[in-house]
């Protein structure tokens, strides 16, 4: 199962509050988002950042679990930390290559939503970086507050 470097780092005095949780099956997304919301509520971050965090993480998790990919390969790891008032996140999972920073496809139907979720991710995040090592997808990003 994928592990992010963030999870393996030794803590330092400069580290702010951190959150780390694994989601093994798609229904567990509910529990992770609840825990995420509670973590965000306990921090000195704006409501806008907290809301955008929920929206972005939910979208990325739904993408990771689409077609059962992440479930078959051990789930998804979500890591967050707050550094200098910035909320940085990493999502890592094994599965088919998927870069959320790539230009989203237009929805198959003019009234569809497919592809629009990635527009939301790209608009609400900063420094979105995708890396693939072997079978592991890793997405690093900050949540934008503008």
């Amino acid at each position, binding site marked *: 199962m994928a592990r992010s470097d963030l999870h393996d780092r030794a803590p330092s005095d400069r580290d702010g509050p951190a959150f780390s949780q694994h989601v093994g099956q798609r229904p567990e997304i509910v529990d992770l*988002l609840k825990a995420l919301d509670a973590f965000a509520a306990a921090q000195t971050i704006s409501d*806008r950042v907290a809301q*955008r965090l*929920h929206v972005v993480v939910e*979208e990325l998790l739904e993408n990771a679990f689409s077609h059962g990919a992440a479930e078959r390969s051990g789930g998804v790891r979500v890591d967050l930390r707050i550094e200098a008032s910035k909320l940085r996140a990493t999502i890592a999972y094994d599965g088919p290559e998927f870069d959320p920073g790539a230009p989203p496809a237009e929805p198959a139907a003019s009234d569809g939503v497919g592809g*629009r*979720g990635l*527009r*939301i991710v790209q608009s*609400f995040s900063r420094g979105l970086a995708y890396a693939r090592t072997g079978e592991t997808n890793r997405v690093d990003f900050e949540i934008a507050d503008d």
Partner: protein
Amino acid sequence: MTSTSGSGSDLSLQVEPHGQSRVVKPIGRIDFATTPDFQDALTQQAAAVGRGAGLIVDLSGVDLITSAGLRALMQTKKRLSEAGAQLVVVGVAGAVADVIRVSRLDTLLTLKPTVSKALEMFGSDPGAA
């Protein structure tokens, strides 16, 4: 007016008939956890909307919507359109407005500022139920 709330849910729903139209007001957040209840309510109310009438979704009580919620709205819009009716979304503000704007659904959804303005589209008297 009727109200429902999912078990342990962060979402409650108020429903009000206006002639052949319906007003649905979700209160809380529409996300991965609550969208199934939201979708069920939209489906149920859309089935009750008459041809030429409208299903008005008042999002003024919603503090967050994700793409799961947007999918529910768009599927309902399509279903209503096939039945000769219309979806109108009102009360879009704050974080909800941000999501609808960046997803570019503001160009596909019929948006009105208030329930009254939406009901005027269908000749409904906002004061009547």
